[in-house]
């Protein structure tokens, strides 16, 4: 089956061409803020109906890989994450670009996207059934504890002004409470508007916070002298970074890849959280945490490795348990069904060749992503040469298309502008955006699992004691929080003394 699956992909030039095409289209979708990998997979799903299962699924996997990686381009060049997965790439990618090191930032982002994806595929190939069994042990208690753990990272993400970071995270969590409540579907903060029943879309929040605030920021700076980042030819040496830089990032890569794959395996969390988790972890472990956010390559490595390693992780429960972790994998599950491939514990026995073909498609897809993105670096960077007054309004219109196309509702465009105004006010008040996104993603995960766990506790008050993974997460959270708060207090005392 291994040989059958791999030869079906490697031995068929048409499949390889389709994968390259899928990755290229995926990159475009990922790079344009508002358009996502999920949208690309949904749009191309009907095209695969007439294809063989292996060709069809290979094309969709290629779109998924391209769509996840493409987000780094706009994150680095425009400070607008193309997808939720690339939010953390903005933190250091954009400052690097502003320093005139956009080729390096892009080169690092592309290369670590590639090896991050390969890491996820290797884990998937070697450990899929074992890892899937661990993932199935995660119930409401574990998810609840994991959400608390991830939310506690806000304190580590925000650094000096913890109050503002926590405020931003709570605003994100509060925005996520609008719509129908988990478990009992009670209407909350809908103000009688039926459109509000499904709550706010992550895409609308993301576009509002990043794209609209960027255009408002440009409007604020219009009277100030503009710095031209790129003029003339773009010079790139090799992959964009040195061998020494590569060696210095080995441990960061391994940690981030492990975090990304782990988060990917757990349904409902996604690449955005994985990127931020890895970024925070690498920042805390670093010898120079104060430099993070000013344009260090470690930040780009952490985010891009992690969000791409998530792909392999997310496919593990999808294939072995039939559980989709996010919107894209849910569409992929539908695609598998359309092609008569039953995802679940028996997939290796019944459709082993398709599973190995998916592995092969992911490897070729990663190579295609590396080749296409490196080939395009010079073209991508030329975007920076386009005057802001032309570039940003056109990007804004594309964002509106993305917001509308997500679920064909004008309501999402209204929300986008609403969140843009909120973002503008937040920026004036010094409130950071990343905790808002983290709170918005993790808030519902926490609430739904907290309420489920409470139902177990209502039956047996000691039910939580049977969940060692959850207890471990809580203990780690408490220890990390205590250490970080101590560090923050120490640093502020030092600063006070210095003043």
């Amino acid at each position: 089956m291994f040989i059958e699956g791999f030869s079906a992909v490697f031995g068929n030039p048409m499949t390889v061409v389709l994968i390259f095409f899928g990755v290229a289209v995926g990159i475009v979708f990922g790079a344009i803020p508002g358009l996502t990998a999920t949208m690309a997979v949904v749009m191309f799903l009907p095209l695969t109906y007439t294809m063989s299962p292996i060709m069809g699924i290979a094309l969709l996997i290629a779109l998924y890989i391209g769509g996840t990686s493409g987000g780094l381009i706009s994150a680095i060049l425009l400070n607008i994450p193309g997808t939720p997965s690339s939010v953390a790439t903005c933190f250091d990618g954009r400052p690097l670009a502003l320093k005139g090191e956009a080729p390096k930032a892009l080169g690092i982002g592309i290369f670590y996207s590639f090896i991050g994806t390969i890491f996820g595929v290797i884990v998937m190939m070697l450990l899929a059934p074992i890892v899937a069994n661990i993932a199935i042990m995660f119930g409401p208690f574990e998810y609840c504890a994991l959400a608390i753990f991830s939310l506690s990272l806000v304190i580590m993400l925000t650094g000096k002004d913890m109050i503002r970071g926590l405020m931003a995270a709570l605003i994100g969590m509060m925005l996520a409470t609008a719509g129908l409540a988990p478990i009992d579907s009670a209407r909350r903060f809908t103000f009688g508007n039926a459109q509000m029943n499904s709550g706010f879309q992550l895409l609308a929040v993301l576009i509002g916070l990043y794209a609209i605030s960027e255009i408002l920021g440009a409007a604020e700076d219009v009277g100030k002298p503009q710095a031209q980042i790129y003029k003339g030819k773009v010079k790139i040496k090799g992959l964009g970074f040195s061998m020494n830089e590569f060696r210095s990032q080995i441990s960061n890569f391994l940690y981030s890849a492990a975090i990304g794959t782990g988060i990917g395996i757990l349904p409902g969390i996604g690449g955005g959280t994985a990127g931020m988790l890895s970024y925070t972890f690498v920042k805390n472990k670093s010898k120079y945490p104060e430099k993070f956010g000013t344009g260090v390559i470690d930040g780009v490595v952490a985010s891009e490795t992690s969000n791409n390693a998530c792909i392999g992780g997310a496919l593990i429960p999808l294939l072995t348990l039939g559980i989709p972790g996010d919107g894209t994998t849910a569409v992929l599950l539908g695609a598998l069904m359309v092609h008569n491939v039953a995802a679940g514990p028996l997939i290796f026995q019944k459709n082993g060749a398709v599973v190995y073909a998916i592995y092969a498609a992911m490897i070729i897809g990663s190579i295609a992503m590396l080749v296409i993105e490196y080939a395009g670096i010079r073209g991508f960077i030329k975007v920076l040469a386009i005057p802001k007054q032309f570039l940003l309004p056109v990007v804004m219109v594309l964002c509106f298309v993305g917001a509308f196309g997500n679920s064909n509702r004008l309501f999402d465009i209204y929300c986008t502008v609403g969140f843009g105004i909120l973002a503008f006010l937040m920026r004036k008040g010094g409130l950071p955006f990343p905790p808002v996104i983290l709170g918005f993603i993790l808030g519902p995960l926490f609430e739904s699992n907290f309420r489920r766990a409470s139902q177990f506790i209502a039956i047996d008050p000691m039910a939580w004691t049977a969940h060692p993974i959850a207890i471990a997460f809580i203990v780690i959270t408490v220890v990390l929080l205590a250490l970080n708060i101590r560090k923050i207090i120490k640093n502020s005392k030092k600063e006070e003394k210095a003043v």
Partner: protein
Amino acid sequence: MRKYKDLITGLAVFFLSLFYLINIRSVRVFTGAGATAINARTIPLIEGSLLMLLSVIMLIRYGINARRGGYVSESGKEDSLDGQPLRIRMAVPLTLCLLLIYVLAIGRLGFVLTSIIYLFFQIIILSPNGKIRVPFAAVIAVIAPVIIYLVFVYLLNVPLPRGIMPF
């Protein structure tokens, strides 16, 4: 401005949390079989209360720092827009107005017409002094929405608001 940043942010967040907490009362609580003490109001109540607490802490911090004289006015450092044309001084409110007009008009006028109007004026607003190129702005404003519309509607089958446009 920095001097009042904590005060203004604290007050704004306080009123935001107050508005949120007041609206929790309108959430209906499920009381049937299987209901627990943790209901649809619990988490919003915790989140709203925590946000209010943080805003109060920020206001207290402002009070303490203001008494110590810990805030330094940075108004002198800000780039002054005095002497710049009205278009530049009003660029932010004008952009906000354009965005609001865009969302209000897109349903009636459709994607193409609304985007043409938006792009044209937005390009003019964002153009630095002396670099306004009206014909070029007009060309981009027309070409970009038309291409986007054709690609999305006819190539990718993503419907966009048609409005009064016949196609």
